[in-house]
Structure formats: C-alpha cells, structure tokens
C-alpha cells in the first residue's frame, strides 16, 4: 500500500468516526461565537460610548448654561455694587438710601427674591423687599458670608432654606461693596431655586432624561424631575458628587438607587462656582441605547444565520462525505468481489486442469491394460486354441466382451466429461444435416437394419456443433438401438414452437420405449432402464445429452408409452436462434 493510499484510508477512517463531525461543528461554532461576541462587545462599546457621550454633552451644556446664568447674576450684582452712588452711600453707612436705589431690581429680575445689604461683618442693614425684625441680625454664619468674606470676591452660595417666612429654598449671590478703604459692605441677592427651573427647562435633556443641580455643598439644589420636592437632599459623600465637587466630569451607567432604575448618569462641574450638574436618563429610554440594542439584535441575527449556514454546510459536507464513503465502500466491495471472482476462476481453472489431467490419464492409462487383456486373450485364442476346450474359449470371449464394454464405458465417460468442461462455441448449426449424417453413419454400421428415418428440413440453430453432434448421436443412436426389435422401425426428428420465439426439438421412435415411472432416472449417470441383454449401453449417453443441453441454457425431457416408442425433447436456450447470416460474396 502506497503512503498516499494509507493517508486516504486514514482520512476515510477519520471521517468514519462520527465525532469528527461534532468536533468540526464545535470548532466552527466556537469561532463564529467568538467573532460574534467580539464584534458584539466592540459595537456595544462603541454605541455605549456614543450614548454616554450624548449624555455627557447634555451635562456639559447644562453646566455651561448654569455657569452662564450664574455669571449673569454675578454681573448684575457686581454692576449694582459698583454703582458710584450706591458705593458712596454704603461707605457712609447710609443703608436705607443705598437700598432704595435697588428697589426696582427684584421687579426687573424676577429670579431675585430678595436683595439685602450687610456690613462687612455680615450684619443685615437694609433689605428689599423689607422684612420686619431682620435688620441688625448678623448672618456671618451663613455660607454666603463665609464664601464671600474668604477673599472678598463674588460668591454663589449653596442652597439653603430661608430663615424668614416663606421658608423657601434659595441661594445667595454675594458681592462685596468696595471702596478705597476696603470692603464697606456686602450686597446679597437671594435667588429662588425655582428660577433654575426655566433655565434648565431650556436644555433638552432627552427622552425621560432629567437634570439636577448639586451645589457646592453637595446638596441637590434643583431636580428637574422633582421640582417641588421640599427640603434639601444632601448628596455629599456619594462618590459621584465627591468627584463633581472636586471639579471632575464623567459619565457612568448603573443602578440609580433613588429612581430605582438602570440609568446613564453624566456629571459636569459648573466652572467657577463649585456647583455641578448631573444629567441622567433611564437606560431603556436612551434612543442611542435603543438603536444600539437594535443594531446588536441585527448583528446577532446575522451571526445566527451564519452559524445556521455553517451547521448546514457541515451537515451537508458530512452527508457528502458519507455518500462518498459509501460509494468508496461499494467500490471496494466490488473490487473485492471481482478479486474473489478472479481467484475463484483461477481455482476453477486449476480444478479444470486437474480434471483434464485426470481425463487424459483415464483415456490413456485405463485403456492400455484393457487393450492388453483383450490382445492377449485374442492371442490365447489364436495361438493356444488347441489346448482350450469350448468352456475355456467361452470364458475368454466373455473376458473380451467385458473389456470392450469397459472401453466403451471409458469413451462415454470421457465424452460426458468433455461435454461438461469444454467451452461452448456458438455458431449456426444445421441440425437437419447433422441428424442425417448421424443416421448415415448408423446405416453404414448396420446395413441390415431397415429403419424409416424422417428429418424435418432446415432446422438451423445457434450452438456448439461438436457438442450438438454428441447429442444427436446419442438420441438418434438410442432410437436406432431401441427400435432394433421393432418391425417397421421409424425415427422422426422435428421441431415445434416453444414459447414466444424459441423452438423445441424432438427425436421420436416407435421402439421399446420406457416406463414413465422411471422418467426421473432417465437422465442420470449410469442409469439404465433396460438390461444389457435386451439393449446394450453404458447409461451415460442421456446424462451427457442433458449436460450439453443445460450448458446451452436449454432443457431436456422425455415421454414414452411402454412398448409404443419414446420421444426425447430438448430446447437450446435463449441464444439458440441463429443470427441471420450475412450475405457473403
């Protein structure tokens, strides 16, 4: 076996192992799933980034907006505080007059709830609109005072609840009123937290999105989803607010414990004021997320299809491999069968050779001693006749006739064996001519016999002429023999249609016939239905006939009515019709 064939066989046996299919399926599936999950992650990350960036942008816009608004209020406060006359009045302690200048400010700027003046120590000196009983109260504890007094720069305070009624949530913008000598007082604008509402509402926070403001103390200054929530929620200490207060910005996703939902949370500091903006949107409401989900669904569907196709392909491939394997098996089996046929044929040829050798041996070696017996018997009769009496001569004659019978037996056996082993060579044979030649031979051998022989004209068949001659020699010879005691002996040979396109042939005589009870024995070797004294014979002739007929693919049978003759029939099989002879010039 060559290496290639070995490899092929190995491959075949590998394919034959069903698990290889599953291993392949597993590997391909794993590869596809890996690719799918990596691109899933990639796209997920990308689209999440988009969604987060969008949210962060909202937070930044909100923060910028807030910074701008705060800046404007601070600008307003500064422009008020720097009015020359106002500064003058404050410096001179003329608080009432100074505040009067501001009287119209809350009306013009509706966010401003109140506006008051304190001295540099934080003691309220005048307010608009005026509240009873607060003048002279020191507010140095308030954040706005601590914020502004730190470095005497404008300051936006955290949210706080107003001490006086109505106790609403406000924050303060405090600016120092400075003169040449230093800080003369502080102008404080108290601003309603509600005013943040309209500022924030101007920002598009996205579907179900909301924004809340965290002041510099980490308290929720304003919540766009819950604008009316009373009290002040302190969020300082939470990690995100800590980051915000440190001036960091960012975006995260996670469970919002307050809203109890998965949300995208972006945060950005309001630059310059210590505040921060948090922009939040439930995950499910994010259009970008929805788009992402859809995209990922499409992706997964696509990969699912690919996986399905691969499974299908592997299935088909294994089917094809199976087919090929079966074809290969068939081919191999056929080759084996052919090999076996070749071997059997060779064995048969050997057996045939042996049989031939045996026949040869029989033909040659068995006959020699017979010839010796006969020859010396004859010599005895001739040379020693005077010393033999009639009895002795009788015995010698018996010996000689036996040897001759045995010679005939040997010859007939050889004919039978030849009928069995010679190859059939089909050619057109004129049975009519053949029969007539056999009859002529019989007439020459026994010229005293008077037998009326009739042979149907032009019976031509396709068969082996030598073997068919043996058939007719036997059948006509039998007819000749068994009519030897019949007065007006007659032998007919003719044919009749047998089936669609075949013919049966028969040899009929009016001789001794046989008992139909023994018809089964008729064609057996050494079977005789008559004693040698009645009719001589070896019992091999009809066996030979039958074997030749069988070898032609035909069949032989016989009919008889005891004492009224016998008919022997035969057909010559499906190839017996002679092919039309080509006209030869």
């Amino acid at each position, binding site marked *: 076996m060559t290496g290639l064939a070995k490899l092929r066989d190995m491959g075949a046996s590998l394919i034959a192992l069903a698990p290889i299919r599953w291993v392949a399926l597993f590997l391909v599936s794993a590869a596809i799933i890996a690719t799918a999950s990596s691109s899933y992650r990639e796209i997920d990350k990308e689209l999440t980034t988009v969604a987060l960036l969008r949210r962060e942008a909202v937070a930044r816009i909100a923060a910028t907006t807030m910074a701008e608004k705060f800046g404007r209020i601070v600008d307003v406060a500064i422009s008020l505080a720097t009015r020359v006359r106002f500064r003058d009045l404050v410096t001179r302690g003329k608080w009432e007059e100074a505040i009067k200048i501001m009287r119209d400010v809350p009306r013009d700027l509706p966010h401003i709830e109140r506006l008051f003046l304190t001295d540099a120590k934080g003691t309220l000196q005048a307010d608009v609109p005026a509240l009873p009983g607060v003048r002279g109260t020191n507010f140095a504890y308030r954040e706005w005072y601590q914020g502004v007094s730190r470095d005497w720069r404008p300051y936006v305070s955290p949210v706080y609840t107003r001490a006086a009624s109505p106790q609403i949530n406000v924050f303060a913008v405090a600016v120092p009123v400075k003169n040449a000598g230093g800080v003369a007082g502080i102008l404080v604008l108290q601003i309603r937290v509600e005013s943040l509402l309209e500022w924030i509402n101007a920002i598009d926070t996205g579907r179900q999105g909301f924004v809340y403001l965290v002041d510099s103390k980490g308290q929720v200054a304003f919540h766009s989803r819950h604008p009316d929530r009373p009290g002040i929620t302190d969020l300082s200490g939470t990690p995100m607010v800590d980051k915000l207060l440190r001036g960091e910005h960012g975006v995260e996703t996670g469970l919002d414990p307050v809203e109890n939902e998965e949300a995208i949370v972006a945060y950005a500091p309001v630059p310059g004021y210590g505040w921060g903006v948090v922009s939040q949107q439930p995950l499910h409401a994010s259009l970008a997320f929805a788009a992402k989900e859809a995209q990922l669904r499409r992706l997964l569907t696509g990969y699912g299809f690919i996986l399905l196709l691969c499974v299908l392909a592997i299935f088909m491939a294994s089917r094809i491999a199976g087919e090929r394997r079966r074809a290969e098996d068939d081919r191999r089996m056929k080759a084996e069968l052919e090999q076996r046929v070749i071997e059997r044929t060779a064995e048969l040829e050997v057996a045939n050779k042996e049989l*031939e050798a045996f*026949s*040869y041996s029989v*033909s*040659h*070696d068995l*006959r*020699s*001693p*017979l*010839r*010796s017996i*006969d*020859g*010396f*018997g*004859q*010599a005895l009769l001739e040379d020693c006749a005077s010393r033999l009496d009639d009895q002795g001569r009788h015995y010698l004659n018996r010996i*000689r006739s036996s*040897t*001759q019978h*045995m*010679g005939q037996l040997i*010859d007939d056996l*050889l004919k039978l064996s030849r009928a069995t082993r010679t190859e059939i060579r089909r050619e057109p044979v004129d049975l009519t001519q053949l029969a007539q030649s056999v009859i002529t031979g019989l007439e020459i051998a026994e010229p005293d016999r008077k037998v009326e022989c009739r042979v149907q004209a032009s019976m031509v068949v396709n068969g082996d002429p030598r073997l068919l001659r043996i058939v007719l020699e036997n059948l006509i010879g039998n007819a000749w023999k068994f009519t030897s005691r019949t007065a007006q002996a007659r032998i007919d040979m003719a044919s009749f249609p047998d089936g669609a396109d075949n013919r049966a042939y028969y040899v009929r005589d009016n001789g001794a016939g046989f008992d139909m009870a023994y018809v089964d024995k008729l064609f057996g070797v050494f079977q005789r239905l008559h004693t040698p004294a009645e009719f001589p014979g070896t019992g091999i002739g009809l066996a030979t006939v039958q074997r030749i007929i069988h070898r032609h693919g035909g069949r032989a049978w016989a009919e008889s009515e005891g004492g009224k003759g016998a008919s022997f029939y035969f057909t010559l099989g499906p190839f017996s019709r002679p092919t039309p002879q080509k006209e030869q010039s």
Partner: protein
Amino acid sequence: MNMNELTILLVEDNPDDEELTLRALRQNNIMNMVDVARDGAEALDYLFCQGAHKARDPSQKPAIVMLDLKLPKIDGLEVLRRIRADERTRLMPVVILTSSKEEQDLLKSYSLGANSYIRKPVDFNQFVTTVGHLGLYWLVLNEAPPR
C-alpha cells in the same frame, strides 16, 4: 530397395503394447525390422545415433516412426518436436500411435508436424486391422521422402 529392408522404429514404453503391436505387425505379414525405443530419450539417441546408439549407422534411417505420446523421460510430443527441428530427421514420417483421443493431443501433434494420428483401439481385432492399414500405407503405398 527391398521393402522388407525398411526399418520401423516403435517408441513404446508399455511392454504389453510393444508385444501386441509386434504381434499385430506379424499378423499382417509385415516382416520388416522393428527397433523399439522404450522412452523418449532412447528414441532420440537412436535417431541421432548418440548415447547408447552411438555405434549405429546414421545412414540407416527408419522408414517410419510409430510414436506413443505418453513416455517416460521425454514425452512423445517433445520427441516429435526435436525430430522436426533436426535437419537429418526433418522429413521422417512420424505416426502418432496412442491411447489418447484428447483434442489437445491431436492439435499439438499435427501442429508439430505429425504425419498421422492413430488411436489404439481397445478391441484387439480392430487394433490388428489398424496396424495392418498403417504398415500397408506407410511401407508400401506411401512414397518416402528422398533420403
């Protein structure tokens, strides 16, 4: 040349057959000298005057060789082949005298150039007749090839 001076070479290993053949020849009044070789090798020695027959006169060629096919040492067909292959014996009449009626033997014998093929009958009377015909034909009727 007297007909009786012609020699017959009988190649026959079976002493019975040898004796019966000689008897048949005598019964047919064929009184020619009959030399007998008992196997194929001896037959060739005789014909080519070699071995045990070294002393034989090579000019004395048998008028006819009666050759059995089944022989010890060298079989009849091989003897025939060598006879036909040698210039000295190429034209010598060879009659195959055997028990075999096998088609193969017939075919091979004629292919190798046998002049005649006779199957020895079991019936001795027939055998005598056959041998008579044989002697009459080859020794009397047939014109031998020029020597």
